[in-house]
């Protein structure tokens, strides 16, 4: 097979990694975040109605290329994915690269880990950079609900396949004779968990009830998300993170004028049938279905330096956990509560060592149940194997420029949004204080998955 990809690497004083060694361990060399680009996130059925995943991902890539002058550059790879994907998009990311301003010889692959796709892609590319397999890469994700794949029913599919294989007109007729009226109804994609039939919101409603998270706490977190995001936009924080698309310059779910009163007026939408609980999850403290795409440019320090590109942060480490929600053991979106303690312990860090917490707001209550679990003695002892509670997150460090409740959550695109945001935050903080700054990223995902990562100013 081809050896290491050679774009413009091994220049300067940095020797190539020792290939005879069993493999460089963590920190063998750094993978750094150069920057990111995303398109504004749009509520489903709105600004991006009819826009395909490929168009959105290509736009996000092109914005990244424009920001960093990568026209015609052969990158090590582009790794990205989509949760909602048409079957024709089997090579979605490669096709997007071919349609972008990148050199068409840039390799690409699709990956998918539900809502953690973007973060997992970042980890994948960063690891290849750390191993010396590539010098640079783009991680990203894209999703559209507005152009979601609609499948034909199994009955119609079988008939179509049979008809396709038929040799005579009679055989073809016969193939379709088996089709029933009900088979003509298209299958819309489901956002329910396949094994439980519960939507993510219903799952989280159960977890919310289990941890006794109040409506007020959720609304306060949602309000903070909107206020933080709006303030960050006003301050120009996203000027070099977002490129407008299709007439949208900002995330159109953002309600800078919302208030606790407005949020409190919304009717609950999840957990309405749970016994003994007051339903508390509303459209206001949950993420809407959203369209969007995001990208992150990762590189070795050498590659970035050769091109005079900025280095915002290095990817320190990452961890993925999963929980058994199917058999009632744990809440669907609680895996980060396990991934984060493990990740911090492995790196000799505590919650106090983190300057910025970027906890994906699948729902406001997802963040709150995670925090509650970490503050809970029993959870710490019985679930995390600690002496007591894991710890308390300083809320002043949490989602300081807003998160998914305000920005929206195009599943696979959220990871890239958060990584680029966190990288910029630590870079800014380090520039202000002259001291290293750290960000902890935590993303929960369908299927009981949770991915966490640490970024550090570089």
């Amino acid at each position, binding site marked *: 097979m081809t050896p290491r990809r050679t774009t413009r690497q091994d220049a300067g004083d940095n020797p190539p990694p020792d290939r005879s060694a069993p493999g460089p361990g963590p920190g063998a060399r750094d993978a750094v975040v150069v920057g990111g680009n995303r398109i504004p996130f749009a509520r489903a059925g709105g600004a991006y109605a009819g826009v395909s995943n490929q168009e959105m991902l290509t736009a996000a890539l092109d*914005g990244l290329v424009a920001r960093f002058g990568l026209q015609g550059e052969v990158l090590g790879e582009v790794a990205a994915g989509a949760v909602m994907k048409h079957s024709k998009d089997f090579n979605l990311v490669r096709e997007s690269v071919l349609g972008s301003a990148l050199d068409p010889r840039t390799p690409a692959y699709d990956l998918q880990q539900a809502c953690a796709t973007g973060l997992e892609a970042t980890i994948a590319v960063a690891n290849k950079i750390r191993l010396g397999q590539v010098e640079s890469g783009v991680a990203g994700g894209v999703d559209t609900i507005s152009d979601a794949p609609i499948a034909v029913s199994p009955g119609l599919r079988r008939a179509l396949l049979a008809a396709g294989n038929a040799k005579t007109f009679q055989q073809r007729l016969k193939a379709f004779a088996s089709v029933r009226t009900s088979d003509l109804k298209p299958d819309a994609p489901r956002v329910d968990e396949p094994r439980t039939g519960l939507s993510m919101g219903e799952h989280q409603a159960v977890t919310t009830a289990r941890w006794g998270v109040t409506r007020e706490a959720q609304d306060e977190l949602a309000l903070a998300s909107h206020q933080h995001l709006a303030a960050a936009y006003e301050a120009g924080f996203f000027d070099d993170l*977002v490129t*407008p698309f299709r007439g949208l310059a900002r995330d159109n779910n953002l309600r800078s004028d919302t208030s606790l009163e407005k949020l409190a007026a919304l009717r609950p939408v999840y957990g309405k049938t749970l016994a003994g609980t007051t339903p508390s999850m509303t459209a206001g403290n949950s993420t809407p279905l959203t369209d969007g795409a995001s990208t992150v440019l990762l590189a070795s320090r050498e590659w970035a330096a050769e091109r005079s590109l900025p280095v915002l942060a290095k990817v320190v480490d990452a961890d993925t956990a999963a929980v058994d929600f199917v058999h009632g053991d744990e809440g669907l979106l609680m895996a980060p509560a396990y991934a984060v303690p493990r990740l911090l312990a492995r790196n000799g860090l505590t919650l106090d060592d983190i300057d910025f917490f970027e906890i994906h707001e699948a729902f406001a209550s997802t963040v709150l149940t995670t925090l509650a679990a970490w503050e809970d003695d029993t959870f710490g002892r019985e679930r995390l194997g600690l002496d007591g509670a894991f710890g308390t997150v300083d809320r002043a460090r949490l989602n300081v420029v807003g998160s998914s409740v305000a920005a929206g959550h195009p599943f696979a695109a959220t990871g890239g949004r958060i990584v680029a945001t966190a990288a910029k935050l630590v870079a800014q903080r380090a520039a202000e204080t002259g001291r290293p700054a750290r960000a902890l990223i935590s993303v929960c995902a369908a299927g009981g998955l949770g991915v966490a990562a640490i970024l550090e100013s570089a």
Partner: protein
Amino acid sequence: MTDTYLKLVNAGSTKTLAKKLGLPRPAVLRRFVPGQPLVVGPTLVLGSADHGAPRDATDAVARLLVAWGLDVRRDPAQLEDGARWGAVVVVLTEVETPTDLSSALLALGSTLRTLAPSGRVVTLSRAATESDVPAVAAARHGVDGALRSLAKELRGGATGNGIVLGPDLAGTDGLGVPSVAAALRFFLSAKSAFVDGQLVTVGSSAGTVPSDDAGWGAPLAGKVAVVTGAARGIGAQIARVLARDGATVVCVDVPPAGDALAKVANAVRGTALQLDITADDAGTRILDHAVGRHGRLDIVVHNAGITRDKLLANMTSDTWDPVLAVNITAQLRMNEQLLASGRLADAPRIVSLASTSGIAGNRGQTNYAASKAGVIGMARATAPLMAPLGGTVNAVAPGFIETEMTAKIPAVTRQVARRLNALQQGGLPVDVAETIAFLASPAAGGINGEVVRVCGQNLVGR
């Protein structure tokens, strides 16, 4: 943005009809394409002293043109039957009295009927100053009037422009001055298609001319340029032309224009910088980006501008203030930061977009005209600050240019506005961009504090 009328009167049966009706028939202008000949047809060089001594200046021009590979003739009669002059260069640097103008200008007049479509007339003269003998000043300034008038008489897309040697160049014949050569080449070329009736003063012998054709082909090689308002229209075209001429271009526009900006940046293989130029630190951020990413900053093109048209009687601060803030205040602040930084490359260039509205005024545009006239004032006053750096600052004043913005003008008004110039048509964004690229080039180092109109010699203003 398409000038349908221009197309109709130049093709097919509608062309015949227009001829019969005596309708104005604007010509299709010859525009620059890399590799095309500088001038199509023979070039005639005339001098004020052709019928007496000295001939040095005229000879020097002829030698320069020959060196550029032109077919140079010295006698109006030296034209084959059926042939047409590609260009006529009139050297008037040595005129002493108004009567000295007659021989050369009458000789020029005899060639105009045989001037090729998109032909060129370029005069070379000296600036009249207060210290001149009155007769000398009268003769020198007389060129100004003659040039502007003959430019209005030219047909078929031909243009007339003049190069004026400033007082500091009194002792030279001008041809050793890099910017004179550069201006001559620019006016002869198709790059100046929509520049007409303009006199550009070369004030100093600063600047360097390319040594060969390859150099003329990429005059901005190795330079880093910033273009504000680069997402669309004229700004996007400026970015393209600067990149074509070899510059690395940083494309700047407000964040909401970022998608179009990215497309331009990718097309010119530059970088996109989403930035509101009214931000306090805009100049510094532009410097940081250009120097940080590309190692230097040579050229700044202040193109970003907005309009909020209202009659002054109806004007409020909502419509007045933003126009001034974007079109002039932001430029002033950025220039201050750029100049104070000490981080500009040697011989930096600033080119700022003015407007014919800022020169002649325009009903409903007091705010816009104030800002654009302000640009002209700023350019003149900033010029002395740039000179010590070997740098220049100039203003380019577009007339009616076919853009998305002018496409919104009501149809009849638009048709009238288009024809109100000697070329009887609107210019294209590329015409503005070519002029800016010329002023930004190393060879134009002797042109500082000037205002060059790209207006097809609009009937109003200078």
